[in-house]
């Protein structure tokens, strides 16, 4: 983050302004990625008018960075109408997340004319047989890369988003080489997250500890391996008084149905813009304020963990494990792969369990079984 953006973020934090918001325009998609956390059926997306109204409210609330994502945003027939409204009328700094397979020369030119900050495109491998086996769409890698070239030719900033999973764990170097050849940036994310409805079955696609260790010791990714893999200094009072992340503080997420969540990875419903004003949900939702109240010192288990000051702990993933103040096991595994030191959560899970003896049948269970 640039110094000035950091400064503006601190100002937004102090004034409770939602500086950056991701809006998913649809959950519909033209790919069927094996690791996707979304239900692709349309359960009543916001209309064009509803989205424009939301954007008006967001601009009024001070939102500056607006990310349009999905699902596949180009499946919305009104996508360009929404994009033009966001850019030309409301002057948002717009970022796009897409698989890009619907972007051809004409779409690339139109995006250039409207002006966006960046376009992030999901690329899982440099090898079609791997990428297409993840998206379940034959020919999808070729179409996505064609789009990258169209966008690049128009001078647009493109970022290849490479999500690592068991199927493509060894291919990130190939994707990075491809990005270098195309003259675009590349990001790497080694985390598969549970589905929005809590279904955790896709977590089995996560890369294993060996693959994580390899990624965290790749100098081309992390810079100084010794520095990156060192255990963080013990947490002092300032660290323990700090925020776990920006979710609900300067960022939030809006679903295609108008629901507001603290983050795309934090499916705690805090309100719906179809019923309330965006700013009222942001400022007054009890759940949003509950998320905001959490400091590192408030975390169960993690506060006493040796990784607390250097962990990538995601409160959304912790919430999906059952407690937004609890540990996020996936981040415990990352800290372990990075440093070789198990987290407090991992150690606690290894302790012999207490045998629970049920001494009374619960009423709900009784009624359910009658």
């Amino acid at each position, binding site marked *: 983050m640039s110094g000035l953006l950091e400064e503006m973020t601190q*100002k937004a934090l102090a004034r409770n302004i939602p500086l950056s918001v991701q809006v998913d325009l649809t959950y519909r998609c033209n790919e069927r990625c094996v690791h996707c956390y979304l239900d692709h059926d349309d359960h009543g997306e916001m209309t064009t008018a509803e989205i424009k109204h939301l954007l008006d409210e967001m601009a009024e609330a001070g939102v500056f960075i607006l990310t349009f994502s999905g699902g596949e945003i180009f499946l919305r027939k009104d996508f360009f109408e929404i994009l033009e409204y966001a850019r030309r009328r409301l002057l948002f700094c717009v970022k796009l997340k897409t698989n890009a397979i619907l972007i051809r020369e004409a779409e690339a030119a139109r995006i250039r004319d409207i002006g966006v900050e960046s376009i992030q495109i999901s690329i899982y491998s440099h090898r079609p047989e791997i990428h297409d086996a993840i998206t379940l769409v034959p020919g999808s890698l070729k179409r996505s890369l064609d789009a990258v070239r169209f966008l690049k030719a128009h001078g647009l900033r493109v970022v290849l988003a490479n999500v690592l999973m068991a199927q493509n764990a060894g291919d990130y170097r190939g994707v990075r080489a491809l990005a270098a050849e195309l003259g675009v940036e590349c990001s790497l994310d080694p985390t598969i997250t549970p589905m929005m409805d809590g279904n955790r079955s896709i977590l089995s696609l996560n890369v294993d500890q060996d693959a994580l260790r390899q990624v965290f010791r790749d100098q081309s990714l992390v810079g100084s391996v010794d520095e990156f893999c060192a255990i963080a200094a013990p947490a002092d009072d300032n660290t323990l008084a700090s925020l776990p992340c920006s979710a609900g503080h300067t960022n939030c997420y809006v679903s295609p149905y108008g629901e507001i969540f603290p983050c795309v990875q934090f499916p705690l419903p805090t309100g719906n813009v179809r019923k309330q004003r965006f700013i009222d949900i942001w400022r007054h939702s009890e759940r949003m304020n509950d998320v905001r109240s959490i400091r590192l010192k408030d975390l169960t288990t993690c506060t006493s963990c040796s990784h607390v000051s250097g962990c990538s702990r995601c409160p959304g993933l912790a919430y999906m494990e059952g407690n937004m103040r609890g540990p996020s096991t996936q981040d415990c595994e990352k800290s372990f792969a990075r440093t070789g030191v198990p987290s407090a959560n991992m150690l606690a899970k290894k302790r012999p369990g207490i045998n629970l003896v049920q001494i009374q049948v619960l009423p709900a269970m009784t009624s359910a079984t009658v």
Partner: protein
Amino acid sequence: MNKLFVARNPRVAARSLDGEMMIMSARDSTLFTLNKTATILWQSADGTTPLDEIVQNRICTEFEVEREVALQDAEALARELASHEILQISEHPFPPAGGSR
């Protein structure tokens, strides 16, 4: 001196954060914050009001400054903002454009 007209570059991103204007350049995504004078200039840059009128009606009323000095400073500022592709400058009025928040 010919009249100058200034217009907001429609390709930038802009937002007022608690009174302070943030602008992101379309050219290279560089972020700028505008001081009070530059913010007035940005907000007044509708493409049809001449710069000398903006100085007379918006800047001289806000700051204790002589009109000629203010006009010179405003022109220099407008050219600097134009060099970052935040504003556009012309000796002729621009077609009407969108607003900012």
